[in-house]
């Protein structure tokens, strides 16, 4: 499988603050990739770099182009949805459709109107008069009507209630994703997207701390609810993270053979959220 994103040694400083500190990232074509990190980790800077909205040092190729020198060409193949604030508030719904139709060669107006007809969004209203959920629905309707290779989503469901969030991801999967298109999602709501992901990236303090296919995770990471009498044995296997769990201890291991872990207690693959915490704690503890 070829990669739609290839980045090597991306660096970006804002004054004294290092936003990206040598980011290496590859995203396979057709993947649904989750970019997970705490606040200030460099998620938005990475995503903005991918679509040419932020100048970075290093090697970068997205859909075969360098976003820094060919953003407008790249955006024929890439769509971007940030949090709900970015649609111009002064535009009416019909006017934003007119605009995208005028400037985007791959926009299908009928498709967008079909998507919109399944929502309660009135076409004669200004965007400032829509609820946050409606603005997101509108943006998604526009994006889904564009024939692109890559969709970049930066906290797309921020501030939305659970119904809109669920609907957002359902529509994304059912109406946009076809197995060939690639989606990169950055979000804090890890649990909501875990089931969608085929590729996972953790970023912390401007560095990639994990870059893996979801299908490879069980081979590398394991979480064990360790029996009380086997704690010393578990400690000896150098876990990357230990947490207390209802009177027991949960150990997260990296690259330890499952046969060695099975004898310690109840074994399973950690959730993305648990793995995220584990990797960040590991980073913190060196």
């Amino acid at each position, binding site marked *: 499988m070829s990669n739609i994103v290839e980045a090597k040694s991306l660096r970006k400083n804002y004054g004294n603050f290092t936003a990206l500190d040598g980011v290496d990232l590859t995203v396979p074509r057709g993947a649904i990739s989750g970019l997970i990190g705490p606040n200030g980790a460099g998620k938005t800077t990475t995503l903005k770099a991918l679509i040419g909205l932020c100048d970075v040092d290093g090697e970068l190729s997205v859909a075969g182009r360098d976003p820094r020198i060919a953003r407008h060409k790249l955006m024929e193949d890439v769509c971007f949805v*940030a949090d709900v604030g970015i649609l111009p*508030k002064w535009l009416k719904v019909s006017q934003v459709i*007119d605009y995208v139709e005028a400037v985007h060669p791959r926009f299908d107006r009928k498709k967008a109107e079909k998507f919109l007809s399944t929502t309660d969004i009135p076409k004669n209203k200004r965007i400032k008069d829509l609820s946050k959920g409606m603005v997101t629905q509108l943006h998604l309707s526009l994006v889904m009507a564009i024939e692109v290779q890559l969709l970049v989503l930066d906290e797309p469901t921020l501030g939305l209630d659970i119904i809109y969030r669920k609907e957002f991801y359902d529509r994304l999967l059912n109406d946009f994703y076809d197995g060939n298109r690639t989606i990169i999602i950055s979000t804090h709501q890890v649990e909501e997207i875990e089931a969608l992901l085929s590729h996972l990236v953790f970023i912390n303090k401007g560095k990639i701390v994990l870059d893996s296919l979801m299908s490879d995770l069980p081979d590398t990471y394991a979480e064990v609810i360790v029996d009380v009498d086997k704690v010393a044995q578990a400690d000896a296997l150098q876990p990357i993270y230990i947490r207390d769990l209802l009177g027991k201890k949960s150990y997260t291991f990296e690259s330890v053979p499952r046969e060695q872990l099975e004898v310690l207690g109840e074994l399973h693959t950690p959730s993305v959220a648990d793995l995220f915490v584990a990797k960040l704690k590991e980073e913190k503890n060196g």
Partner: protein
Amino acid sequence: MDKFAVLQFYGLLKREVLEHKNLFIGAPTVVALLILVATTWVATQIDQNQLAEGLRYVSILFDGLSPFDMAPFFMLVAIPFYLTLYVCSVIYLINTLYQDRKEMSILFWQSMPVSNFQTVLSKIVAIVLVAPIFYVLIIFAMYLIAMVWLTILGISNDVDLVGIGWMFLAAIASLVLIYISAFVTSLWLLPSIGWLLLFSAFAKKTPLLWAGGVFILVGFLEDFVFGTQYLANWVASRTSDPNQYLIFEFQSVFERIFNYDTLFGIVVGSILIAGAVFMRRFTD
């Protein structure tokens, strides 16, 4: 240029008009209404016989004369619109690349396959070529209302309507000259357009303060270091001569554009505009 590129640019211009319709349409409409109200009020203060006599005199004055010879009369009537256009242009240019960064909608605009050059060019075309069209149309509408009123007044006072017809033709001729004047003046003021766009694209806050402040600073440094005031004098010579702003005859258009001073200004303006395009590249 292919058909899509033309439609794309039309879409960009439409966006500018929709976003700034207060400056493009609202402001000249208010000026037109104020002039109509003021004229009506003045007319009510004058004795009807005197008014008819004045109309008869003006009708004779315009009768048979070339509309373009009489057009300057109406161009002077349009001066309030001209001043409004320039105030609105400054407001537009200083805010146009700043406002969308401030409200973060730049992420939406930049997520479309439109280059920064196209974006900046559309903004220049919008204010230099499109906005004056709206102004001219609104002035035309105002003249039309005035002509209807004068015609009714003429009929009811037995005034020769042919002269009023010539007057209307002169008014229309003035609209052509007003539009050309606005365009030529924009070329003359291209350095100012470039300067405002540059700081609109650059400033994180208060772009007008940046544009004014940096200009004053550069002028002060020139005076302090070299003891000269070339920059200040150059700008003053470009902004303080009212003759530069109005063109009363077609024959002077060529010489107004193709002279050393204007062409030098176009070069300086183009460099500043290129700077604005460069600054627009990244949103951070």
